[in-house]
């Protein structure tokens, strides 16, 4: 018999990310073929990242841009002085 389920877990992330070496991959796949819980574990771990990635990052709100412009200018002038006319 191979490893117990918990012993696979440290390798699961590498397996899911495609960075695990082939020998271990086939060992894990063999186990997944016989163990429903590990299979569900792997599928839902994969889905977890898929869901987290799903949202598109919103662009920076215009109001923030505008507020920052003023703030940064003030700080800049404190540091470098007001530009000469």
């Amino acid at each position, binding site marked *: 018999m191979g490893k117990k389920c918990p012993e696979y877990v440290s390798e699961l*992330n590498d397996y899911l990310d495609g*960075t695990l070496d082939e020998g271990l991959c086939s060992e894990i796949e063999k186990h997944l073929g016989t163990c429903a*819980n590990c299979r569900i574990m792997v*599928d*839902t771990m994969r889905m977890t990242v898929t*869901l987290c990635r799903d949202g598109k990052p*919103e662009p*920076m*709100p215009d109001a923030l841009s505008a507020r920052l412009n003023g703030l940064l200018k003030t700080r800049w002038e404190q540091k470098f002085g007001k530009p000469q006319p």
Partner: protein
Amino acid sequence: MNEKELVKKAQAGDFEAFTDLINAHKSTIYGLARRLAGNQEDAEDIVQDTFLKAIDKIDQFRLESSFGTWLYTIALNQARGMFSRRQQTDIRTIEEYLPGGQSGHDHSGDGYQLFDWQNPESLLENSQLREIIDRLISELPYKYREAFVLRYLEELPVKEVARQINESEAATKSRILRARLALRDQLSDIFEAEHGQKMS
């Protein structure tokens, strides 16, 4: 004008050159802050503090990295500073998230099976799902959240995440895994409850 020239001008006190540099990277920095913060208000604070810090430290920027990379690191430091001051509880160990682990479920009976949720869209609406995901990520203790966000949302390689958070690759991998397991576990609970309601 290329980045190097802009940096030189900014270091000599040219505010417009500085603004050009910032504008080229503000979407990236805002995106990072939004993901790390999990809410609008904190994200705005991180962005603001990052750009102010960049003004304070602009003379120290030596062009050893790109300006974008330099700014990115400042943003990470600002975020870490903000969240490490807040009270946080630790999450469970890797083993406790496993089938048969002590994750608060009853795994004792024979034939215990994890809840399988292949189609979360059938259980929750997209907007609800989005809200839940944002909340769960933002509730992770910061050191796990940071590792997870950098790895999977910012899509940095593990090596680069390790460099950014100043940890060994092994420690980094462990944080990423624990964060992923914690999120999976909480999503599982939510979907299982939702499924139960739909069935009854």
